[in-house]
């Protein structure tokens, strides 16, 4: 996927004036946060579970190699195959190879952000293989040649109107705005694909080391059909999703559903453990797990290690006032919101993604709701450190900072600077108590007045009072 993060500011301006998008974002704001709050309040041990989950994730990351190898051993023992892929390109080629071996023409897909990350759909299309998204949101996006704006509700930036238009255009049926009718239409279209697909590709919410199982959590059931009907099931997962035991998995399932959608439990929690065994009534003949690193192992031992705790619940973006204002596509790559502002620079480079970790007031709401207590503002600040170290921040910012810091480190001079700024601001405001325009402060005064100082500086007055 093309990285459009350098256009963040321009995209934000457009997003803020897009009435349809703003309507869609209004629905998000009214929905998920309230549901999460209710679900959290109904579980007395919710906060304790968050602590447990944080600690367990820290333990897993410290021993990532051991748990991944255990996972591989058990997948193999079950008759499946694990493929280790260091880069996105490795992963794409591995998946293509599996599809080619099956002579696949059509692959069905369950929702998977990792396949978005590695740009799988575009790649398969170029190789003559048709990927069919089966998650309703992803299906709508595919019809529109659009990309997810949210990691759990990928089409959250669209309104019912948009969906009605897309279905009418592609399904060649009378236009309907009835969600039930639209759902039925999508079902009919997808059923044929489910049956004809040669390979089914899903993501994984967790990988369970002790059993070699993978699990997907969905609310539509499309994932089940994707992974049981075709002859071959390919699970594409990033490496940090491994957990030691099934019991550990349940801890995360309890947190995931509540944090994501405010459900107590996701509707379908489907475990896959190897291919069909003799006597099994269904299941795929071949079972592959493609483990994607794509920069994650570099995060181990770095200042960004804590980001590997992320379970992709979307609570951070659901509660983020910046995400709520501009929507996910403004972020210009796969992962939006606070978690994306930490992950995107890691994956596409801070040179391209520098605007993202800066697009935060550090209000801290994301950290407050993160089920695994990732200190997202701190991690975004670490990216700003990197940006500054590499001299990537704009020259005006760097020189401005240096100028200001020169004074801030010299209290006597700082007094003079404060006093003269104070005097200047009072002059500009006259007797109105505020200014509506100020040189070099257009970012402020385009949208709001600047209150004038109410008198001389405190330090001046304090000294005059001789205290």
């Amino acid at each position, binding site marked *: 996927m093309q990285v459009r993060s350098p256009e963040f500011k321009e995209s934000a301006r457009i997003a*803020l004036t897009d009435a349809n998008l703003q309507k869609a974002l209004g629905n998000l704001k009214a929905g998920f946060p309230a549901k999460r709050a209710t679900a959290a309040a109904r579980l007395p041990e919710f906060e304790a579970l968050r602590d447990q989950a944080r600690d367990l994730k820290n333990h897993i990351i410290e021993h990532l190699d051991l748990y991944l190898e255990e996972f591989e051993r058990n997948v193999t023992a079950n008759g499946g195959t694990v493929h280790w892929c260091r880069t996105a390109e490795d992963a794409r080629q591995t998946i293509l190879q599996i599809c080619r071996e099956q002579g696949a023409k059509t692959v069905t897909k369950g929702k998977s952000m990792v396949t978005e990350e590695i740009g799988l759909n575009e790649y398969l299309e170029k190789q003559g293989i048709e990927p069919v998204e089966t998650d309703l949101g992803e299906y709508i996006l595919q019809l529109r040649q659009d990309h997810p704006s949210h990691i759990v509700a990928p089409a959250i930036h669209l309104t019912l109107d948009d969906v009605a238009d897309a279905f009418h255009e592609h399904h060649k049926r009378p236009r309907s705005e009835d969600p039930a009718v639209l759902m039925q239409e999508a079902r009919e279209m997808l059923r044929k694909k489910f049956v004809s697909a040669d390979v089914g590709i899903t993501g994984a919410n967790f990988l369970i080391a002790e059993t070699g199982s993978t699990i997907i959590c969905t609310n539509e059931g499309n994932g089940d059909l994707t992974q049981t009907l075709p002859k071959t099931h390919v699970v594409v997962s990033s490496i940090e999703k491994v957990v030691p035991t099934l019991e550990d998995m349940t801890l995360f399932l309890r947190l995931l559903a509540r944090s994501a959608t405010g459900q107590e439990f996701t509707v379908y929690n489907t475990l896959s453990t190897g291919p069909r065994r003799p006597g099994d009534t269904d299941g795929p003949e071949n079972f592959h797990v493609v483990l994607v690193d794509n920069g994650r192992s570099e995060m181990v031992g770095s200042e960004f290690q804590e980001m590997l705790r992320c379970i992709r619940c979307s609570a951070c973006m659901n509660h983020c006032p910046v995400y709520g204002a501009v929507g996910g596509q403004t972020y210009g790559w796969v992962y939006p919101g606070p978690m994306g502002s930490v992950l995107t620079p890691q994956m596409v480079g801070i040179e391209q993604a520098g605007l993202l970790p800066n697009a935060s*007031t550090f209000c801290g709401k994301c950290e407050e709701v993160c089920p695994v207590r990732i200190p997202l503002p701190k991690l975004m600040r670490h990216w700003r450190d990197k940006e500054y*170290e590499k001299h990537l921040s704009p020259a005006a910012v760097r020189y401005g900072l240096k100028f200001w810091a020169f004074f801030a480190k010299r209290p006597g001079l700082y007094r003079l600077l404060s006093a003269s*700024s104070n005097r200047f601001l009072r002059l500009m405001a006259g007797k109105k*108590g505020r200014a509506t325009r100020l040189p070099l402060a257009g970012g402020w005064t385009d949208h709001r007045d*600047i209150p004038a100082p*109410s008198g001389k500086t*405190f330090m001046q007055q304090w000294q005059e009072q001789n205290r």
Partner: protein
Amino acid sequence: MAQPRPRVGLFVTCLADMFRPEVAFASVKLLELAGFDVKVPQRQTCCGQPAFNSGDREDTADIARQTIDAFDGFEYVVGPSGSCIGMLHHYPELFEENDPWYQRALNLKSRAFEITSFLAEHLKQETLEGAFKGTVTYHDSCSGLRELGVKKQPRELLSRMPGVQICEMEEAETCCGFGGTFCVKYPDISNRMVSNKVENIRATNADLLLGGDLGCLLNMAGKLKREGVEIEARHVVEVLADMIQTPAIGDAEQSA
């Protein structure tokens, strides 16, 4: 002989110093009322947050060392801002654990308090007299709320004032869009956030908007003025200290 009063070093904050000296004077008045000997160390400048949040660790650490020195020897360090005091609490992150400055930073952190949380604990007066009579609505500034747990304290102090009624706004805990340099780096997004905030403030029909951080208050007051909303804005200590003779934030001098 009476016990010497414990010494508080007032962390003035840049914005109170430059924009609203009343906030610092009100802080002194309240701290003295609570029985402290209040001093204003002259070697203090800024807490360093602009550098810290822009990735300039080196200048931040220099400023931190200067601040630690300036407030050496005070039993308490108190400031009228959750954001600036929150920054003082970040100082230990700036030094390696074997650096002597790390221990000194930890020590400063243990003595540094946001003013409303400090007063809620130390101000023993059960009733606070004040000229202000009316309804107020309170914005919870993010750093104070989430880094220092400031939520009930200002409301508890206001409840000691017989003439003050609190009328809570919707989304009082949602960021106003100030965010330090954020508001000038991302003016369009900041504008959306402060517009949402002003809508929620307006809906309360309160007489006065209060908060504990001047950055947020300048932002919200500036937007209230631009939109022609009549609701005034002040730092909470101005009301608590009964220092409301000065025009509210962004208001003109009253003609006598």
